[in-house]
């Protein structure tokens, strides 16, 4: 995927609630590349135009699993706090 495609995909998946300033995607991609989570290469797409493509690496996939797990832990605790029986707002 190239940058513009990633932005489009992000908009589609988030039903346009994600209003990312598009330029800020690139520092993020470059950081991920520096850390070895993605790799980039130049290639021609279906339109014949050459672009810089990004691909996730094995290291990146491992990190993704880890980040998902952390998100799970985080969101579960947030849910417990704001909606759970123990600390539920309903108690007030």
């Amino acid at each position, binding site marked *: 995927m*190239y*940058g*513009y495609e990633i*932005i489009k995909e992000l908009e589609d998946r988030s039903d346009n609630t994600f209003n990312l*300033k*598009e*330029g*800020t995607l*690139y*520092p993020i991609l*470059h*950081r991920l590349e*520096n850390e070895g989570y993605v790799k980039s290469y130049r290639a021609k797409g279906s339109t014949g*135009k050459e*672009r*810089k493509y990004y691909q996730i690496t094995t290291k990146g996939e491992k990190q993704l699993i880890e980040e998902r797990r952390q998100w799970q832990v985080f969101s579960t605790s947030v849910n417990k706090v704001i909606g759970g029986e123990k600390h539920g707002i309903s108690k007030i």
Partner: protein
Amino acid sequence: MEFQKYSDFLDAVLSYVKFPLDREEIRLELSDHIVDKIQYYVEQGLSYKEAEAKAIMDMGDPKDIGSQLNKEHNPIIGWLWVISKGLVSIFILINIFIVGPRLLYLTFSIFAPSPIKDIPKEDIVYKLDINERVQIDDRVINFTDIVYDKNETIHIIYNYYDKKIWRMGWSHGYLGTIKDDKGNEYFSGSGYRGGGIVAKGRKSIRDQAQVTEEEVLLQRGGKALGIFLGMLKV
């Protein structure tokens, strides 16, 4: 900040990126993105000018993007990377052009047959297996065999190398003359082969030394080579 043209926007972003060698690639990537976005808006029915302005707006603040990119394209790391790549190439070149031929020479000289093979077997009267190492300055001489043939010629088989490996290009396998502190010459004349790092050689001394069988046999007792050399004083 408003930008009329997307190239101005790109200039603004790149002004924050300190490492010059990555700028072109970053510019290309960002410009690909904006061009795609302009095309998208044009397809939506906007004029090119409107489309361009909107696409630039969508990108965000050039200072934000530029300074964030600058963090990922650290000039120190960038230059170190460039320099290390340069050094690697230089190192490879050195290996190819300087060390390479010498190593080839080394392998050649190590596997070169020992000069002892030049002496016909049937001529050998005595063959002594000695293993004497002598170090003279940076030269290490390893005497391996002494052969006394039926023509009353003594052949000393040796190999030697220079401990200063960078000097090996100038050693041509010729041992030259060895003198002691009193100026006595022990070793001169011709009869060598080899070259490179390890040279193999043979010295043949005829008659002059007047070495008797008994004296040669003395060496079996493992006497120091110095004694033997002493006998060979020219």
